[in-house]
């Protein structure tokens, strides 16, 4: 079995897919990081140029915010939950003051997290599709399927080895994005910021945002959380793409189908609040990281566990279909 997996991995490497993914990541991350730096520099320049008295004095603004926060915490009208979330804000602002960092300064840590939060819906699935789309359909188009299937190995084992190889490479793609995002943005910003405190732990309670269980984690821990969720998405997309690759003998059709589903699904998300069925579609649930940041549309019933459940179900069903079809498929090459 290990031998089969190794073989599949070698096939993927030989097709230079990782090189292509690497290039995509470098270009995309580079543009993204440069764009953010450019916008930030312009903002600072504008403040400093036209502010008649002093330059962009973030320290006094933050100082003012801290004073206000402390005053609010003393107010008798504040609820217990309110105090907790205020304390979090105070700690965050204190961190920035102590470390003499402007809170809106871009840092490599923040970029790495933000990049994956944005990439999760479409860019990461695209990378996975590059790896996975021709996993089976490629064997058909190059006629190597005959060679593969005439071995004394059960068909499901062959597919399983492909799937495991795919999972391994997808995991590495997620790792690679994280490393590239960190390195490239680090070069642009010069600030790492991995020990910045980040607030997470927002929950939806009775339709209202509950910030009482909010905790502070450091940026690198937060990034690991984000990339772990990204990894799960990668696994799910791998499973679904594998099924499509099994059912369709042309690689371009496989790619087309998956991309069309992803893009169409994004449009369907606009109907999320009106059409109940949409929340059961896997594309609507891809943005898992939104649950961590608390910035998501509050649809009743949708939570991290719900989305994970839906995605998991889609993956399992896809695998079942994929394996069944592959085992029974008539090969007429």
């Amino acid at each position, binding site marked *: 079995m290990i031998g089969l997996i*190794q073989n599949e*991995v*070698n096939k993927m*490497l030989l097709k230079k897919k990782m090189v292509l993914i690497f290039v995509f990541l470098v270009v995309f991350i580079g543009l993204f990081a440069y764009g*953010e730096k450019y*916008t930030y520099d312009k*903002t600072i320049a*504008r*403040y400093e140029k*036209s502010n*008649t*008295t002093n330059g962009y004095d973030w320290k*006094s*603004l933050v100082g*003012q*915010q801290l*004073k*206000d*926060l402390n*005053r*609010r915490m003393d*107010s008798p*009208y*504040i*609820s*217990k939950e*309110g105090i907790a979330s205020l304390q979090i804000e105070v700690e965050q602002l204190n961190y920035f003051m102590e470390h003499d960092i402007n*809170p*809106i300064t871009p840092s490599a840590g923040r970029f790495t997290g*933000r990049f994956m939060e944005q990439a999760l819906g479409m860019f990461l699935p695209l990378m996975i599709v590059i790896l996975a789309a021709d996993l089976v359909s490629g064997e058909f188009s190059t006629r190597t399927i005959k060679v593969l299937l005439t071995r004394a190995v059960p068909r499901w084992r062959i597919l399983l080895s492909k799937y495991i190889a795919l*999972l*391994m*490479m997808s*995991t*590495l793609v997620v*790792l690679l994005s994280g490393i590239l995002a960190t390195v490239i943005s680090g070069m642009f910003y010069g600030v790492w910021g991995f020990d910045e405190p980040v607030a997470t*732990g*927002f*929950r939806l*309670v*009775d339709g*209202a*945002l*509950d910030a*009482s*269980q909010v*905790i502070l984690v450091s940026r690198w821990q937060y990034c*690991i*959380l984000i*990339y*772990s*969720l990204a*990894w*799960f998405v990668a696994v799910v997309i791998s499973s679904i793409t594998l099924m499509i690759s099994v059912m369709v003998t042309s690689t371009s059709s496989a790619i087309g189908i998956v991309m069309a589903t992803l893009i169409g699904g994004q449009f369907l998300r606009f109907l999320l609040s009106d059409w109940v069925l949409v929340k059961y579609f896997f594309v609507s649930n891809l943005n898992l990281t939104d*649950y*961590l940041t608390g*910035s998501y549309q509050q649809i009743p019933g949708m*939570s*991290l*566990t719900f989305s994970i459940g839906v995605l998991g179900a889609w993956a399992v069903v896809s695998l079942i279909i994929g394996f069944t079809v592959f085992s029974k498929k008539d090969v007429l090459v």
Partner: protein
Amino acid sequence: MYKKIIWPTILVLSLAMTFLFVSGFVKSIQITSGKSETTPVPIQVSTTSSEVSSKPLDQVTSGEPIELLVIGDSIGVGIGDEESLGLGNRYAQLAKDGMDQTVTVNNIAVSGAVINELMNLVKNNANDGFIQKADLIFISIGGNDMNKLLGETNLTLSSAYEDTLTKYLADLEVILNTLFEKNPKARVVMFGLYNPYGKEVGSDKINRLLDWNVQTQQLLDGYEQLAYVPTYDAFKNKLETYLSADHFHPSAKGYEIMTQWAYDVVIGR
């Protein structure tokens, strides 16, 4: 030579990362759905304001002595006013000079307050005394909610703004309904948000501010005894004179302008 190390490297690396990601995955689930210690209190939205009394509101405009209640944030408190007067006292001055009216000012505004805290304050029975005896109520709120959006980038501004705005409008509606429920005869003046940063903050954010004010006005429109002071228009292009030294709160001149506008609106000029 490469071939010998590539496969083991890939194997080990992917296994290690899988392990890391699975633990991160489990942690994420824990964080977002841990047991809640505090039981959520269901928000009771009071009945609509359709039962607001339509008794003619002569008292405020006739010169009879009235009670003015100021609630909201630091602008309600009067931070930045070099003469330490603020909205309430300035209004009392104008009413005295204009129609010899005695205005008793009660100020329970809290510096830095956001809409959620104001809602709790208004719903708190401890403040019923102030609310029920008020003939005129000044509200200044929203600035601190909007201020939080300063740090958003182009990518995140849209969703952050929509989120904040939706919550703000919902809370504001509860505040107004509660106020009128507790005091059907009250007349309320709400001050719109101005832009203390000028053009430097970027047109994206300025547009959001304008939208915020428009949405606020639309909500206010549904209530009869409600007036709105368009502070944004008053302050535009005059930030040097209307802002205090902290470049954020109004100056004495700024407060003067705001109060004058409120006064004109209230007495119906």
